């Protein structure tokens, strides 16, 4: 449980421990979303859309200096906050770490339910895409190196 993802998760857990009230927590989440860079216009297409029944997510993956980077966006504020959380935790981490991460911090900050497969917000699909992308890159790296 060491590594860049784990330390980022710990940071977030501490950050969220400040909030007793759900409202404060969600407001913090939404603010995180507001600060999100979003995706390039060229990526705001169906091909990069992760469909949810209720809200949409766009995901733009890339590689920088051998690390997997993500940019993402959503049309709903809460989803966008959750997206920002995921990007903050996973973007710029090594591919193998991304693949292996159980994202258990969501449990600790009381937001695990949003990642349940029965949620219709597109978030599960996004995490799946992120991991798939990282896995593909990791196996590519392994075979080249």
């Amino acid at each position: 449980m060491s590594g860049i993802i784990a330390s980022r998760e710990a940071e977030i857990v501490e950050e969220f421990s400040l909030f007793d009230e759900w409202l404060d927590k969600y407001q913090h989440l939404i603010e995180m979303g507001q600060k999100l860079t979003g995706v390039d216009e060229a990526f705001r297409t169906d091909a990069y859309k992760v469909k949810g029944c209720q809200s949409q997510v766009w995901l733009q993956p890339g590689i920088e200096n051998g690390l997997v980077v993500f940019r993402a966006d959503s049309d709903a504020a809460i989803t966008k906050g959750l997206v920002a959380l995921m990007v903050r935790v996973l973007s710029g981490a090594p591919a193998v770490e991304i693949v292996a991460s159980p994202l258990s911090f969501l449990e600790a900050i009381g937001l695990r339910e949003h990642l349940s497969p029965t949620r219709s917000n597109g978030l599960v699909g996004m995490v799946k895409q992120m991991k798939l992308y990282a896995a593909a890159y990791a196996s590519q790296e392994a075979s080249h190196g």
Partner: protein
Amino acid sequence: MSAFTPEEIQALRSRFPILGRTVHGKPLVYLDNAATSQMPNSVIEAVREFDRTKHANVHRGVHQLSQEATDVHEGSRDRLAKFLNARRREEIVLTRGCTESINLVANTWGRQNLRSKDVVLVSQIEHHANIVPWQLIGNQTGSTVVPIPVLDDTSLDQDAFLKLLEGAAGPVKLLAIQHVSNAFGTIHPVVEMIRLARARGIATLVDGAQSVPHFAVDVQALDCDFLVFSGHKMHAPTGTGVLYGKFEVLDALGPWQGGGDMIDKVSFSGTTFHEVPYRFEAGTPNFTAAAGFTAALDFLEEVGMEKIHDRDTELVAYAHQELSTVPGLKILGTHLPKAGVVSFVLDGIHPYDAGMFLDQMGIAVRTGHHCAQPAMERFGVPGTIRASFAMFTTETEIDTLVEGVRRVNKILGGR
């Protein structure tokens, strides 16, 4: 004067065990009745009692338990025939839900009667259940699905309807129309529309999913060929539904699903089929739920369909009035009369976000496209926030909703 006294409403509420629940530490405010209604004690206990004492497979058994179960199961058919004022019990086909009922009509009547280029007329704000089955059967028959446009107040454009009836988009074979919009609550003038269609020899199907639970629907007065609806939206158990069909119309249809109970004689050289309605009821039916369906009809009639409708109208009026005072809020579906539903959007706020926040306050509303994506497209919104009522809904609950929406507005819209 209200349809119910406050005491009567409290007495009604006490019959629904789920209303005693809390959500996120707040008392549940259940405003999602159009998605699924709640079950009163009498229905829950009727199901339980049946399973404890009469549970047995129906129709083919000679033993006492099977006879009793059959009486309960077939009794629900009698009860439904009476509830709808059908001419004969055979006009009631028991299905697993409104969706199956429509698919049944599409795969029997549709397959037998639709030809290439024929038109099935629906409304532009139809539930997917009354669009997709006609598209799927159209893939086989070559028929098309054409929407009757709606005006900005979500009422149907009657001029456009008349032109379509006259063949503007091709020869119309079927008018398949919702009685009440689940997305907006609008009650459509189906009696008049059916009259116009029938005068041109066009068959008619009414999607009563949102009307039968809310006011008395008389199939003889409607004079439609088919009426479909679900039990779970009228306080009955899930997994129940009804297809009403005029006897002569049903009698002319071949089977759809094959299996036990729907046959007369099965052999590898050729099979013949049972009479109506059994021809359409393949396999072991949901007989336990039938016990609950009867109890639900008893409940509705005890409360009174007229009072239920009156109360509904009061609640819609009150919700309209109070929600209109919220800045940035726009009600979709301003045409009256309406039944049980108020749908709205908040300027600059995604319905999903609003729904999530309201949920945290214990308020259960539905957000999203309400299985009516073309309706959302028509009004240029990703979805709406929909509050839908039951006879037990109170003005206080609507106040809580309005208060919640104001908070959402403040947090998310900065208003």
